[in-house]
């Protein structure tokens, strides 16, 4: 990594510490929920990352289908994997919060239901990719699937909303239903989480690149050895 990249990562680290301070110390407990509200900073920020990640997957998949450049597909793949991890965080933190506030671990609320479906959709994306040996085929198939899944998500959400509708809307048309300090803490955690997402995305993609280069080198070495054996043998 280059120097400026290290600087950015260091800044992100500081940001994360500040964010923790704001989540747990600087921001006040909520009037009804008390300290439980602090889960929100983690929960909502994870959701933002998950949605962003899946959006990125769909978009880059589409770019891959047009451009056929390896890098777009790898970024799409890594983004989907991060998305699944963060969706898991959203589901777990949501459940804990639900138990504390709604007195139930799970309800068939539209947002919860959609999130769970999302988790299944992208788990399938990962399985689909992992189970196809041909690199080009895996990339194409996953791009098509990622795109179709992304188009389906709003329809899923809308249909589940019509089907049942108790999730708190912290962001309404009028703006945020919260005191300014909490809004700031929340927005700051968005920023930090998205920063972390970008860093993981970048590093994982670079690792995938190295891995592929390594396997190409292995192939070269194997070929060279085969050639050598052929000469010695004949």
């Amino acid at each position, binding site marked *: 990594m280059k120097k400026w990249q290290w600087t950015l990562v260091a800044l992100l680290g500081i940001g994360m510490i500040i964010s923790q301070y704001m989540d747990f110390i600087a921001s006040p407990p909520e009037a009804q929920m008390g300290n439980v509200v602090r889960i929100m900073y983690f929960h909502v920020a994870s959701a933002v990352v998950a949605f962003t990640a899946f959006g990125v997957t769909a978009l880059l998949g589409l770019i891959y289908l047009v451009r056929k450049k390896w890098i777009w597909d790898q970024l799409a793949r890594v983004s989907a994997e991060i998305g699944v991890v963060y969706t898991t965080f959203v589901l777990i933190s949501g459940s804990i919060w639900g138990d504390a506030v709604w007195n139930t671990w799970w309800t068939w609320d539209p947002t919860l239901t959609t999130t769970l479906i999302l988790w299944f959709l992208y788990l399938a994306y990962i399985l689909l990719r992992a189970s196809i*040996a*041909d690199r080009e085929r895996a990339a194409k198939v996953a791009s098509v699937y990622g795109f179709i899944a992304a188009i389906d998500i709003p329809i899923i959400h809308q249909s589940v909303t019509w089907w049942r509708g108790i999730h708190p809307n912290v962001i309404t048309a009028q703006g945020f239903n919260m005191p300014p300090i909490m809004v700031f803490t929340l927005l700051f955690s968005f920023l930090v989480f998205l920063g972390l997402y970008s860093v993981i995305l970048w590093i994982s993609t670079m690792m995938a690149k190295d891995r592929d280069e390594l396997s190409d080198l292995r192939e070269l070495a194997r070929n060279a050895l085969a050639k050598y054996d*052929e000469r010695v043998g004949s």
Partner: protein
Amino acid sequence: MNHLLELVGVQKSLGHRSVLNGADLTIDAGEIVWMVGRNGSGKTTLIKVAAGMSTPGKGTVLWFGNRPSSRLRSRIGVLLDESFLYGELTAEENLLYYAKIYGLKDARKQVHDGLEQVRLHRDKHVLVKAFSKGMKQRLAIARTFLHQPEVLFLDEPYDGLDAASSQLLTFWLENLQKAGAGILLVSHEANAFRELPVRTVKLAQGRLIEGDSQ
């Protein structure tokens, strides 16, 4: 004059193994190219890519000087290890199905002739899943030649054939070659087509080298 087939810098990986690594090949009208190479050197992969069944990672494939398209696919014939036949259909139904797909005129007659030539006319009402390896191969050959393709990809076409069928296949190849077709042939039964004028290329380390030299 365009080449019938042209591959430029074709690269293809399967899993983490790069199989083709900048393969170049041209086939002109009236040419039979015999591709040799050790097991697992990627001959089948090269055929799949050249026939448009598989997309290359990098590089270009041109048919008759153009990018592969659905219109041009009707002028290509492919015979792989897998026969592309339906086990639950009879020999005749299989060929009729392919004849309909290619929109052949008097399909019944052509199918009948094809079956007779590969000596399967007596078994035409037998389900293909009951066929022996050799019979299936003969039917697959009839299937490949049915629409008189101008570019042919044949992967081990002599596999499982008896002497008479081998001769017939060689005869067909000769006729097509004289008629100006281009043929890419993979086969280890060199004896079967020794009379044919072939140009040999060798696939090694994912590249094609002219001649059979080490």
